[in-house]
Every structure is written in structure tokens, then in C-alpha cells.
């Protein structure tokens, strides 16, 4: 408050409010909401700005830097605690039975991810806010073997083999709720289509297979062929194919070939294959 006499030109400034403030006052009544920095209301000796040569930064009176920067004087810890105590009535508890991620996934397998954007500008809308991502693990859906393979083929890149997670991202509709409905619709359609078996699916060739199956493959034919010829050359009585298939050496060979094809070439797999071939062809001499 300034008392100014326009005749004499004398102004008398009242002392700032800070001098009358008690040390244990209620600060949340001085700054109840976000407000600009008022040097006469803040009893702190703050200096801010670039220091003068061989001097100190400028004081708080008339300091534009202190007014420009957003201050948190209205959000001191006691003020935050007061606000939260009043807000606590409106909060609800998380169900205590769902205390881990695994349990959440067991009871609620589908995860919907949405993003909200808050920023200052001419418009509060953000076009990225309509994107909806739906994630679900295929092990939680009711699918049988054929349905799972067909679904993975239908979905392509959206399925991750390592985590067994199907991710559907939709943003073709203008509103978020529409995108959510569309993603649920996509999931429903995929699920039901994968349970159907079309006529042309019986024409599935070996190249289309996801994993290597030993039965009816050239590896099986070649192995049986070789063994039959060995037996024929040794003039042993005709051994049937079923007996050969059931023998230990052939089973060993089968497992090692499947491991090689499905899991790739590791040291273990290759050495296992070597052992099984040696046993199959009865060549123990080589190291």
C-alpha cells in the first residue's frame, strides 16, 4: 500500500506483509491456489537472475525472473496432505485378491491401452488420443491346436511368439469408443474364423507347416529306406516298418532331427544328431 501526495510528490510505502507474518502461520491461506510470485507476501530472502559483476544475483523485489517461472508455493507438503485428506473419500480400494500381475492376467486377460494428452494450446483435442491398443495372450483364449495356428497365420505380424501376445492397434475410427468397439469386433471375428475349417485348408503343404513333423516326411522315408536296405543286404528276415519305427535307434534319430529343425542348430542338438546317426548306421569307430 502506498500513500502518495501528488502535490509534494512524496510517497510513503507501508511495510510489506512479510514483516507481520508469524513463523508458525498457516501458509495454505497465504497461497491457497496457484498465483504469481508476490515478493511482499513471501517471507523468503530469494535472489534470482544473472549476478552483477563481482556481485550477487538481484533481490526478489521487482524481479521478473521470479514472476515468470511457475512456482509451487500453493503446493507445500502440508497443503498437499490437506488436499489428499479431503480427496481420500472419493477413492476406492484396489481389490486385495489381485495383488500380482499373474493373478490380474488370470482373471482379466485382456489389456486395453489408451493415451490421454494434456497440453496448453489453442485446442484441447489431440488426434492421437483416439488410438486404442488391445493386448491378449492366446493361451487365455479358448482355442484348439488348429484354431491357434490359423489365428497366428491370419494375424501375421501382430503376434509375438516369445511372449505369446496378440496386439491389435486400431485408429481407423474418429472416436476412442468406436476404436475400442472395433478392436473387440476384430478379436471376435478372428476367434470365430480360426475355429472354422475351410475346404482349401486340406491342401496345406510342408512349406506352410509352422513346426517340423517327422511322420510322413522325407527324413522318415530315407531313414526307413536305408534301414530296410541294410537289413536286406544282411539277409535278415523281413522286418516290418512298424517294428523299425518302434525301435530305439529310430526314435532317437527322430527326436534329434525334430530338435534340430524346430530349435535351430545348437551344440547340444548337433552332437545329439551325431550320436543318433552313429547308432542308426552302427558306426561306432568314428570319434
Amino acid at each position, binding site marked *: 500500500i502506498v500513500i502518495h501526495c501528488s502535490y509534494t510528490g512524496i510517497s510513503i510505502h507501508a511495510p510489506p506483509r512479510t514483516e507481520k507474518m508469524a513463523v508458525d502461520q498457516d501458509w*495454505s*491461506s497465504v497461497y*491457497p*491456489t*496457484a*498465483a504469481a510470485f508476490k515478493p511482499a507476501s513471501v517471507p523468503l530472502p530469494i535472489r534470482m537472475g544473472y549476478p552483477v559483476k563481482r556481485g550477487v544475483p538481484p533481490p526478489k523485489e521487482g524481479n521478473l525472473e521470479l514472476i515468470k*517461472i*511457475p512456482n*509451487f508455493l500453493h*503446493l507445500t*507438503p502440508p497443503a*498437499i*496432505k*490437506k*488436499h*489428499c*485428506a*479431503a*480427496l*481420500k*473419500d*472419493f*477413492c*476406492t*480400494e*484396489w*481389490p*486385495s*485378491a*489381485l495383488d500380482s*500381475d499373474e493373478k*490380474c*492376467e488370470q*482373471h*482379466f*486377460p*485382456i*489389456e*486395453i*491401452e*489408451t*493415451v*490421454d*494428452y*494434456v*497440453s*496448453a494450446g489453442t485446442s*484441447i483435442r489431440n488426434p492421437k488420443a483416439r488410438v486404442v491398443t488391445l493386448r*491378449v495372450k492366446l493361451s*487365455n*483364449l*479358448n482355442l484348439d491346436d488348429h*484354431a491357434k495356428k490359423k489365428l497366428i497365420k491370419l494375424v501375421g505380424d501382430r503376434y509375438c511368439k516369445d511372449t505369446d501376445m496378440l496386439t491389435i492397434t486400431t485408429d481407423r475410427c474418429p472416436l476412442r469408443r468406436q476404436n475400442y468397439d472395433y478392436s*473387440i469386433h476384430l*478379436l*471376435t471375428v478372428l*476367434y*470365430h474364423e480360426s*475355429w*472354422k475349417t475351410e475346404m482349401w485348408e486340406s491342401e496345406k503343404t510342408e512349406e506352410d507347416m509352422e513346426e517340423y513333423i517327422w511322420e510322413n516326411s522325407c527324413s522318415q522315408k530315407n531313414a526307413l529306406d536305408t534301414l530296410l536296405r541294410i537289413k536286406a543286404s544282411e539277409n535278415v528276415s523281413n522286418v516290418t516298418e512298424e517294428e523299425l519305427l518302434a525301435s530305439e535307434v529310430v526314435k532317437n534319430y527322430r527326436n534329434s532331427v525334430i530338435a534340430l529343425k524346430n530349435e535351430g542348430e545348437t551344440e547340444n542338438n548337433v552332437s545329439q544328431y551325431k550320436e543318433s546317426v552313429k547308432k542308426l548306421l552302427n558306426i561306432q569307430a568314428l570319434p
Partner: protein
Amino acid sequence: LTFLLLFVAVTHEIPAFWPHSVQRLQQLRQLKAFGLEAGMVTLVLSLKMQVSISDEPETLYKRLSLLVKGHDKAVLDSYEYFAVLAAKELGISVEKVHKPPKKIERLTLLKSVHIYKKHRVQYEMRTHYMCLELKYLTSSTAAVYLEYVQRNLPEGVAMEVKKTKIEKIPEHIQEPVWDTLPQVEETEVKS
């Protein structure tokens, strides 16, 4: 496993552009906007806020990820202290708070209005980030926390909130529908 889904709806006047609150909240004419306006703190304490419970079941959020962006690191640090303290007071578990590295966008412009191509001036815009991850919130708690934290967002700071909602598998995906449909003769597809 059965567990009670508690449903609490907040009853106070909320401006129309907060869509997540307008769905479930009723407008209470007498109760003014929640006491963060000037001088309203004392008023709120005397005017008891009414909590009403609605029938809608709560949606559950497995994770709430707040990414705050600003030009000034000190402002973001203060905001982080505020957000973490608010979460602790409201009983929300904070998974982690981490600060992704800042991104600097630089541009080089001509210093003079006309000619003097060799003399340029360079500007840069620094964006600092702070990411706060919260776990296991119900929709009421999330609405309350987000509203509180977003109303107190300082000027010049932007926020992105990523919500991960968890849901049960809808009924129409439990069983394939082909088992229940009546047998229909297959018709030839006309090419």
C-alpha cells in the same frame, strides 16, 4: 475367486470437457468446483462434500503411466515431488519414477534480414521428461488422482497419460459360435 467391486462415483460439478468424469458423475448444483479456487479451502471444509455411490462396476487400471514434458528441469523436479507425495497420500503404489534423457531440437537461421549468408544464429529448444508409473488403480481413484494432478499442472508443462485397463474376455469369445448354430447346407460360392 470372487471379490467385491466397490463402486464410488464422485459427485461434484466438473467442467464438460473432462469426458472421463462426465460419464459417471452427477452435477451437484450447490457444490462448487472442488476447492482449489481462491479462498475455497475453508469453504469446502464447512460444506461437507457428498459422496454418492453409483451402480456402475469399476474398471480396473493395471498401470497408469504419466509422462510429463517441460522446458525447465527445476519445474519438473518440483512437480515430481508433488505428484509422488499426492500418490502416497492417496494410497496409490508408485512403481517407479524415472527421467528419460532430454531432447534438444536445434535450428540454424540467418542472422540478418538480407544477405550475410555467413553469419547465422542458432536456437535450441530443450524438452525434459519425467515418467511416473503407478500400479493398480480403480477408475474412481484414477479419476481423482488424475484430476488433482492435472489441475495443478504448471504452465508450460504438458502431460501424456497412458492407461492400461484390464478386462475379462467378453462372453461372445468364450465359445465358438459355430457349435450352436443350426446346420446349414453349404452353398457353392459363385465366382
